[in-house]
């Protein structure tokens, strides 16, 4: 009960923030009825999906301060669990998704245990490696469709059990539900014991240890929470796109985008990943469709991301949210 109260309690935010949050919520609720085109709706769905990813990353990467660049492997685990169970045994989404989360949790514990012997850059490199290895395995594993990927069977009629709808609006509200669960969860998380301990670990590991914090265990817990979040998003991607392959759900660039969105918006803040996704998802879509039309320009979007990473880490490590906070402090 108390946890629920904490999750729904936004009273420590400023009044402006709370009003913005309410307006934002109303906007999201009515958005599909504003007569926008399907492309814009897709961008919106992507935005909420990536916010979900970013918020998950924020537990270990933001609050815990561990540069984690391997989240795509958990997107893949979530997506493949849902897709394969549906193709092989016709398991409904609502059963396969929790199983996907459990697999992601178990896998992240196994991976996290040795991984968190490493610190700093070495940890970051190791997360990239584990993700790449998993992608390579899926690329060559014929049983799961190898590099061809798998297509989900398309149902003739809309089916809630299998999350198959004709209109994007249903998916929109479904991801919006997940998005809000994530916000409430993170609102609880930042006030929880684990949240405080992680921030202490980020500040000063030696001091954290002297205060009775089992650093490695804390990091593993946060890493697993992040993985579960991301796996949910992966499961959604499977039923939404109806087709997955290692290149779309396990690519390194996906891991980097997830981390970049949270970092650009502001790591270790509740709104950061959302702000970051609001910037980068439309930019990504715009660049993707614009540069795709010009021969020889593909790849420039990644140069732009790389530049963004450098600018953010050099000038404002706390991201866009850090800039906003700075202005507010000055105004006071």
């Amino acid at each position, binding site marked *: 009960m*108390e946890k629920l109260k*904490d999750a729904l309690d936004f009273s420590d935010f400023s009044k402006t923030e709370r009003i913005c949050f309410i307006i934002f919520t109303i906007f999201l609720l009515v958005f599909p009825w504003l007569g926008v085109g399907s492309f814009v709706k897709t961008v919106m769905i992507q935005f909420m999906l990536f916010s979900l990813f970013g918020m998950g990353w924020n537990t270990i990467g933001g609050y815990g301060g561990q540069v984690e660049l391997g989240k795509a492997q958990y997107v893949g685990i979530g997506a493949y669990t849902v897709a394969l169970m549906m193709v092989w045994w016709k398991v409904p989404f609502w059963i396969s998704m929790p199983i996907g989360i459990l697999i992601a949790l178990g896998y992240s514990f196994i991976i996290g245990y040795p991984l968190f012997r490493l610190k700093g850059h070495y940890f970051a490199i190791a997360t990239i490696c584990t993700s790449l290895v998993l992608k390579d395995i899926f690329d060559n594993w014929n049983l799961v469709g190898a590099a061809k990927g798998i297509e989900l069977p398309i149902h003739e009629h809309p089916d809630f059990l299998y999350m198959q709808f004709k209109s994007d609006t249903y998916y929109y509200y479904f991801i919006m539900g997940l998005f809000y669960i994530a916000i409430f969860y993170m609102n609880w998380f930042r*006030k*929880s*014991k684990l949240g*405080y*301990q992680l*921030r*202490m670990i*980020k*500040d*000063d590991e*030696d*001091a*954290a*240890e*002297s*205060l*009775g*914090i*089992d*650093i490695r265990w804390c990091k593993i817990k946060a890493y697993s929470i992040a993985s579960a979040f991301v796996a949910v998003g992966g499961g959604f991607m499977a039923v939404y796109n109806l087709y997955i392959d290692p290149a779309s759900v396990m690519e390194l660039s996906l891991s980097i985008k997830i981390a970049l969105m949270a970092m650009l918006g502001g790591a*270790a803040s509740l709104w950061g990943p959302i702000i970051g996704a609001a910037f980068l998802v439309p930019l990504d879509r715009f660049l993707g469709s614009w540069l795709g039309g010009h021969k020889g320009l593909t790849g420039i979007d990644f140069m732009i991301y790389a530049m963004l990473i450098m600018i953010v880490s050099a000038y404002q490590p706390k991201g866009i949210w850090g800039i906003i906070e700075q202005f507010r402090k000055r105004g006071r």
Partner: protein
Amino acid sequence: MAFLEVKNIVKDFGGLVANNNVSFEIEKGEIVGLIGPNGAGKTTLFNCIVGYYRPSSGKILFKGKDITGFKPFQTSREGIGRTFQIMKVTTGLTVLENVMVGAFSRTDKREVAEKEAMGIMEFLGLIDIKEYHINELPIARQRKVGLARALATKPELLMLDEVASGLNHTETDEMVGLLKMLNKEKDMTIFLIEHIMEMVMSVSKRVIVLDSGVKIAEGLPNEIVKNPDVIKAYLGEKYAKSH
């Protein structure tokens, strides 16, 4: 059975012997000072007890329990609190949150942790800076935050690493008063490393002297200052004459 027993601790870093066969005991309720010249192995000894280093050989017993080779978070849970000589200047957590993290080691509830943290900060006079970050504070205040943080874990033995270095006279006196009060009112056993002789002498009931990793003397403060070995190794003739 003593409160803290250190038996024949040896710590060598591949040839460099930082602690050689150091043994001593601390009784409950004592304030014990550890002194010695630079490089005598004081901090190494501290780190061996708290668990940052694993002693090469020897044993550490806390309340009769063998804690040799325990990790720092485990010794903390056993009831040993410590402060750091150099406090990392951080911008993440506020002072209150820092102390709360200490309190979280004994509770899972935020309200309880916050209440306890506030109690300790009131005791140390830190309430007015609770929303500040450590990087915004002068060094004396930073030290007190470190102390408050350690106290919030409800230790039975408090180990202080150069808690007075960098403080001026008034601040040092204040710290001495604080430690005495902690010892008397909260029945805290205190073990401190210190360079400032005045501080060690005025606060400690017993002093242990290390030199080149070896314990060369142990006794009451006024005996120690007259001990010829200690004078030769650390205090110098001048100090002996002026006292």
